């Protein structure tokens, strides 16, 4: 007890709320586990997010890092070692104290190859795992093999695990088997604002206030305010909306634009908030893979067009992004011309051209590239390539995503005006992924990616030609084109650059190259839409995940009398 010393609480600024009450939110289906080591799905991560805490945290509102479990940190001049000082006197939610050994244990587990923790890949910098060293009870040093531009953002989301609960299991090699939802409440602990209370299979997960939580409000009141946080499992988006509308849940996030306008129309006792464009970017890309043995002759024939920059630029010029924003997102979105979504305020390149839709420009580009048109009998014209073959291809979309299916239908109509015959093939998401990343048997595809962090590095596997999300031709051994090589170089360089300005410059350049070559034709980015009952205080949806629960410890019920449920 002595050693731990006095509690060093983190005092949060901002509106002071009232303690007590219960908050009910819906989750699109069940989380799968409480164990951060195996959590792979968004829902589990969302739940884990409120039960665990990290050393350094990215503030979802400012998109900047700020101290969390770490009271402070220091970066060595060479940028390779991070010295982190832990807050004193902190306890896990079961009352057990936190010390440097927990941190060491945590990182040992994350980095253990046999555990297959998804976090491991993050912690490989320059191809080598980060090493961790304990200095004293409250100080640890992280050693990187290479400078890393993102720096302390690395620690965001890396939950510090309770060694006292896990160590034995870890030794037995059974880490994967613990932390299931059915775990007894006293068998699980974390450093987050809430701890496990009850789980009803298929129905709900009830969390209760962690009395040992290490944050307080400006008046010294201990956070979180809420006594209970209930996650209801509602597997259907529309049902989530209905549940919110009927007052059975208190907050809603990730609302689709159409549902948002339905909800906005009749706001009884709740407020809908449009937080502006988020970090999701939707794009169309063509199959540019060149591993010969995998691609069919038919696709190889089409790839002749796809490889043509002019062709891609023409497609981009023909796409009516304004219509996409209006018809797909009902205006609650932003047209997109580059990879960095407008929600990412620091990293976007303002200089990127935003050409308006122009079929004329598209035709000119195509003509330059040797395409021509023939007039069909029914009045339509057909685009022919230099061999006289008509230009026909298919676009894959995920059938679970109505928005993208709509985009595809619009693009199909746009391209028809260029004389291209496009088929839209909606595929169930696994089949789609299999085609794009494994069999690579497709022509073109519409996809969307949501960056998890506002930092440029979150999209690294999209940028790098060796990356798995370099979708038009993933996991290349060597960059196939000079511009890809150039992007690779810029991105690698920016990773080890130390100042933001340096990185931004390199990153801007990469964006320009991408915009020029259009391997991805960017379409639009939806706004983050959320809503909450008027009785909920400190409701400030962010454009980063978790959109509404990021400040869950500060959320409170304005009127203590009001029960969250009817």
């Amino acid at each position, binding site marked *: 007890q002595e050693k731990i010393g006095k509690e060093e609480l983190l005092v949060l600024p901002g509106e002071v709320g009232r303690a007590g009450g219960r908050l009910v939110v819906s989750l699109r289906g069940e989380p799968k586990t409480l164990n951060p080591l195996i959590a792979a799905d968004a829902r589990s991560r969302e739940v884990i997010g409120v039960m665990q805490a990290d050393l350094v945290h990215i503030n979802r509102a400012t998109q900047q890092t700020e101290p969390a479990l770490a009271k402070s940190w220091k970066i060595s001049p060479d940028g390779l070692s991070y010295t982190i000082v832990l807050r004193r006197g902190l306890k896990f939610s079961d009352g057990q104290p936190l010390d440097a050994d927990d941190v060491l244990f945590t990182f040992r587990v994350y980095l253990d190859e046999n555990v297959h923790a998804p976090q491991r890949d993050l912690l490989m910098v320059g191809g080598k795992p980060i090493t961790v060293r304990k200095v004293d009870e409250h100080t640890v040093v992280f050693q990187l093999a290479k400078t890393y531009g993102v720096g302390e953002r690395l620690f965001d989301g890396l939950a510090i695990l309770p060694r006292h609960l896990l160590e034995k299991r870890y030794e037995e090699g059974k880490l994967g088997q613990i932390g299931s939802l059915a775990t007894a409440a006293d068998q699980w602990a974390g450093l987050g604002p809430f701890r496990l209370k009850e789980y009803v299979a*298929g129905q709900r997960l009830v969390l209760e206030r962690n009395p040992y939580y290490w944050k307080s409000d400006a008046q010294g009141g201990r956070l979180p305010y809420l006594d209970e946080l209930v996650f209801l499992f509602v597997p*259907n988006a529309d049902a989530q909306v209905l549940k919110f509308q009927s007052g059975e849940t208190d907050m809603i996030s990730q609302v689709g634009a159409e549902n948002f306008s339905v909800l906005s129309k009749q706001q009884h006792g709740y407020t809908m908030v449009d937080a502006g464009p988020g970090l999701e970017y939707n794009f169309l890309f063509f199959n540019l893979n060149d591993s010969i043995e995998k691609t069919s002759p038919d696709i190889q024939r089409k790839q002749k067009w796809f490889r043509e920059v002019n062709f891609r630029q023409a497609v981009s010029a023909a796409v009516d992004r304004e219509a996409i924003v209006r018809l797909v997102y009902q205006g609650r979105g932003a047209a997109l011309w580059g990879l960095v979504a407008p929600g990412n305020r620091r990293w976007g390149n303002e200089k990127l051209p935003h050409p308006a839709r122009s079929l004329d420009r598209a035709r000119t580009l195509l003509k330059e590239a040797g395409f021509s048109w023939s007039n069909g009998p029914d009045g339509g014209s057909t685009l022919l390539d230099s061999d006289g073959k008509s230009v026909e291809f298919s676009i894959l979309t995920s059938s679970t995503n109505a928005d993208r299916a709509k985009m595809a239908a619009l693009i199909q109509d746009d391209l028809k005006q260029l004389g291209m015959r496009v088929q839209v093939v909606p595929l169930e998401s696994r*089949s789609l992924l299999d085609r794009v990343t494994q069999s690579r048997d497709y022509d073109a595809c519409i996809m969307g*990616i949501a960056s998890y962090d506002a930092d440029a590095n979150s999209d690294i596997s999209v940028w790098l030609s060796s990356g798995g999300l370099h979708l038009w031709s993933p996991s290349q051994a060597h960059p196939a084109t000079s511009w890809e090589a150039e992007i690779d170089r810029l991105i690698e360089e920016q990773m080890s650059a130390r100042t933001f300005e340096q990185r931004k410059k390199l990153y801007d350049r990469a964006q320009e190259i991408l915009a020029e070559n259009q391997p991805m034709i960017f379409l639009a980015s939806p706004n983050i839409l959320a809503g909450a009952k008027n009785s909920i205080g400190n409701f400030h949806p962010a454009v980063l995940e978790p959109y509404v629960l990021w400040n869950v410890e500060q959320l409170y019920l304005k009127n203590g009398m009001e029960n969250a449920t009817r």
Partner: protein
Amino acid sequence: MRYLLRRLSHALFLLAGVSILAFLFTALAPGTYFDEMRLNPQIAPETVTALRAQYGFDKPLPVRYASWLRSVIHGEMGFSFAYNGPVAPLLLVRARNTLLLTITATLLAWGIALPLGVWSADRLGRLPDRLLSWATAGLLVIPDLAVALGLLVLAVRSGWFPTGGMASVDFETLSPFNKLRDLALHMILPVTALVLSSLPLLVRHVRAAVADVLNAPFLLAAVGHGIRKRTLLYRYALPAAANPLISLFGFSIGVLLSGSLLIEVVMSWPGLGPLLLEAVLARDLYVVVGGILGSTLFLVGGNLLADLLLYWADPRIRTESGAR
């Protein structure tokens, strides 16, 4: 008795066949559970490959089947990748909820369909019958999901019912009576949706079957003996028309586990629906196979029941089977 034993052995073969084919089909379908991770920029492809290997995806199908069989013998029914645990407990809890819903709905649907069908057969071609025809045709063209959503909208607008789910958040604190009330209140909408979705089929079959026998001379004879109309319709006409209805009833039993999946999803009913649907899309194979086997059991049971009922209800068939 011998008959039952024979059917039981058939059922075992069937289960084996279904499980093998289910394995085969799932193997044929593109993608595996771990592919989703490929879209996560934080996870390296190598990790995905390692995970696949860990769960035996690099092994040939027969090997996987054998190890699955072993886990079935242990009562685990395989391993859920998503939940990182054995499948059986996952399925059991939810199967209970699903059965609660579907059994109620099935009983109710038959309870409504029988009198309604008989009633409309009795008025064949007259206005009430025509109106019913319109209603059933309308229900047939509106997708089940739309019906379910419509009911939810009704719940929101009226505030009479909870919008889905199986229990209120404070369920645990309620008195036993209120618990029951709460449950009943939550069941109303999904049960209604299920009943509405199966009603057109049942009503139409009942109507057709009864209309068929209402023409039979033995009914005329029964009228001649002064049998009351109710008795006539229910004791005379219905048993004579029971044949196709019994087969249909067998199906109703057969789909107890699998017939409500989509409606459960929309109604947030914590049954097999959300679990299986997610598992199918996520390729959580063993959960799917477990679900399939569960519903196969019901299917077999339902058909067996239907066969027994058929023999019971139609003595002409019975002697036939006795003779051979």
